[in-house]
């Protein structure tokens, strides 16, 4: 069973998302929360990193954090999935383990 990787840091400021994506197992999922949601905006210098993760497994983003930072849904990289806190809980339950990239 695969891992839910949780990233909460802006990839423009820190290496957490890059390190996470460098350590993904097959079918592992990535969830962006808090400041990491800024990675969801298409057209940025980190979009290729997200596309790389999408070739491996699903990439989720917490919609509440996206709205707070005014990243519009229509600007989100195609293929990413928006979830709410209940969706976050279910992802944590469905995966064998969670790994937070602090």
């Amino acid at each position, binding site marked *: 069973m695969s891992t839910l990787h949780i990233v909460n840091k802006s990839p423009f400021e820190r290496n957490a998302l890059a390190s996470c994506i460098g350590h993904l197992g097959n079918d592992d999922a990535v969830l962006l929360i808090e400041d990491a949601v*800024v990675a969801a905006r298409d057209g940025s210098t980190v979009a290729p990193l997200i596309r790389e993760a999408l070739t491996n497994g699903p990439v989720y983003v917490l919609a509440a954090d996206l*709205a707070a930072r005014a990243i519009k849904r229509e600007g989100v990289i195609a293929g990413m999935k928006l979830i*709410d806190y209940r969706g976050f809980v279910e992802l944590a339950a469905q995966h064998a383990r969670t790994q937070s990239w602090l």
Partner: protein
Amino acid sequence: MAEGIKKKLLYVNRKAPYGTIYALEGLEVVLVGAAFEQDVSVAFLDDGVFQLLDGQDTADIGVKNFSRAYKALGDFEVRKVYVERESLAERGLDSADLMQITYEDENDDGAEKPLVRLIDRRELAHIMSEQDVILSF
């Protein structure tokens, strides 16, 4: 208290809002500091540009939305607000994503004018090099 001294004072904002408190508490310094009538500039670069995005909605994270307060910068006599162009571009953003912040130009019959000026990195570096004091948040 600091009678007569007028310093060039730059506030540097490099962090996204809400994930940490630095954006909010940084803004509080700018607003309180306005009473001291210094020669103030405020710069947004790196993830600091996210602080000015239009349409922030914090209802679902339960954190206070303080983004309206940036619109008050003009009322606090702040006249030099800079956003770094390269920081926007790297993040897939452009000036159309920013909230409208205006001030009333006292030299032009109180006409409303845009407060935020997009500048490039080289120009921002030059502004930094002209200051007496730099406060970073």
